[in-house]
């Protein structure tokens, strides 16, 4: 085919200004400033290091729990108040599976412990993915596009799942001991750092890297990012977005299950409400990150984790208020969240 066509076009492409570059990376800068302010307010570098690692670990676990929800929010436009149910079920399944592997969890070998945790995580993720499929088909499907009904039905789903946990595991809370080699702390620069928190940081970083890769480099990621913006056009290009919805919902549920196991072992005591109790922080992270944004979710989770730990040390009564205040401040600065992906619908 031929030739000479559009008007001659010689755009001048200029490098982004320092201000533009700064604005793009502002959320990262805020995290660093937050850490610096924490150091100044706390005074002791050793205490600060302990609190910072605790904050990062908490942030990573919140990110794990919230990462699925933000994609579900962004792609499917579904307000899922039932997400906490997957966290609870993940915790119960994971801890129950761990209990079956006492020889591995009581071993002082780290590899044996990690193997046990890995199996427990896989079991929890499989259980919550299947549960996610059922949840999407029976609870979400009838209410697509109807936000008020979504809130009501998913809240109902959450209550049903919590009651089912009582049926299967009984009414008492469950003790969730950490495997032997993951207990205790190691001393780094004079600060006692819990080993389990370091594991949480590593798992969170791996998950973030994996999700970033999938979203940026794979065809499924491309479809999800396009679907978050304009699902109708994705369908017109020949892709079954509704099938993608189911897969994304299952993946989001499985990630909540993973988060449930991590959070359960962190808390060491689990109840049927463990998921719904942490949902306030999960929602804060999803909202300040920007619906549908994995990067925003990650940055938001780190901010929430750090701020919660610093304020719990400096002014314990302000711990929860501080996160709400953070959300208000972020939304006043960027009303669609730090990395907006979805336009207002």
């Amino acid at each position: 085919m031929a030739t000479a066509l559009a008007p001659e076009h010689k755009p001048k492409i200029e490098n982004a200004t320092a201000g533009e570059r700064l604005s793009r990376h502002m959320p990262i800068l805020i995290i660093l400033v937050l850490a610096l302010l924490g150091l100044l307010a706390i005074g002791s570098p050793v205490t600060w290091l302990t609190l910072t690692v605790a904050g990062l670990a908490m942030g990573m676990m919140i990110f794990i729990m919230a990462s699925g929800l933000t994609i579900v929010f962004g792609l499917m436009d579904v307000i899922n108040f039932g997400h906490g149910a997957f966290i609870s079920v993940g915790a119960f399944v994971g801890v129950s599976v761990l209990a079956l592997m006492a020889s591995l969890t009581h071993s002082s070998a780290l590899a044996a412990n990690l193997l046990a945790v890995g199996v427990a995580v896989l079991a929890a993720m499989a259980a919550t993915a299947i549960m996610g499929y059922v949840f999407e088909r029976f609870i979400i499907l009838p209410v697509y596009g109807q936000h008020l009904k979504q809130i009501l039905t998913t809240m109902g789903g959450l209550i049903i799942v919590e009651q089912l946990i009582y049926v299967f595991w009984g009414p008492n809370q469950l003790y969730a001991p950490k495997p032997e080699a993951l207990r205790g702390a190691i001393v780094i620069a004079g600060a006692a750092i819990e080993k389990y928190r370091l594991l949480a940081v590593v798992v969170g970083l791996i998950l973030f890297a994996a999700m970033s890769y999938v979203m940026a480099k794979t065809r499924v990621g491309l479809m999800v990012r396009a679907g978050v913006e304009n699902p109708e056009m994705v369908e017109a290009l020949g892709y079954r977005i509704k099938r993608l919805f189911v897969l994304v919902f299952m993946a989001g549920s499985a990630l909540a299950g993973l988060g449930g196991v991590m959070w359960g072992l962190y808390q060491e005591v689990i109840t049927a409400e463990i998921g719904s109790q942490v949902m306030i922080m999960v929602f804060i992270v999803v909202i300040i990150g920007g619906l549908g944004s994995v990067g925003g979710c990650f940055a938001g989770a780190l901010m929430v984790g750090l701020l919660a730990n610093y304020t719990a040390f400096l002014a314990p009564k302000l711990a929860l208020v501080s996160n709400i205040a953070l959300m208000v401040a972020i939304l006043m600065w960027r009303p669609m969240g730090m990395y907006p992906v979805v336009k207002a619908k």
Partner: protein
Amino acid sequence: MSDALLTLQGVHTHIGQYHILQGVDLEVPAGGVTMLLGRNGAGKTTTLRTIMGLWRASKGRITFDGIDITGLPTPDISRLGIAFVPEDMGIFAGLTVEENMRLAAQSGAIDSARLDWIFSAFPPLKTFWKFPAGNLSGGQKQMLSVARAVAEKRRLYLIDEPSKGLAPAIVSSLAKALKDLKAEGATVLLVEQNFSMARALGDTVAVMDDGHVVHGGLMAELASDRTLQTRFMGLTMEVAD
């Protein structure tokens, strides 16, 4: 039966309580450009969206190459070989130009000769290949929207007002690209308000009014007959060449 690639028979479309298409009968012959003309609100966009399955026909039948596609899901209709350029362009602003194009290639990769043609037709797309599509100008976004539809050879192209609001120079490059498509034997159903472009590209024409097709025939006939133009569209197609 004619050699129509696409046929609409008595198609009705409701959007909520609005009865938009009220029995559309239309035939799009294979291997040519059919212009869909009519004033604003006549039902042109609704016709294209109904063919794509984005709005469901409440009555009537749509057949594509003999296959009844009336109730098919949109992705299945697309995979039969129908490309769609919506009126609002439908580009993914957060994706780069390259990612927009990659997504449009159902086979997974764009043929390099095809991509060369696209770049020669729309040079700005090559310049901004790695840039977010949201940063493009209106004309460049329209180029991307058309380029995405032609990323792979399709059997039918549904294109909704590609020249809307664009500078004449960009309109001429779009028209040139559509002429190239026509030359490769593609079938195009084109909604257009730019009469100069309609006259230059159209082989056949259908004029819509109030949710019906009120006239169908050869473009040349309509272009040369002022009485027909006044009767069906309330104006004439006199343009400066």
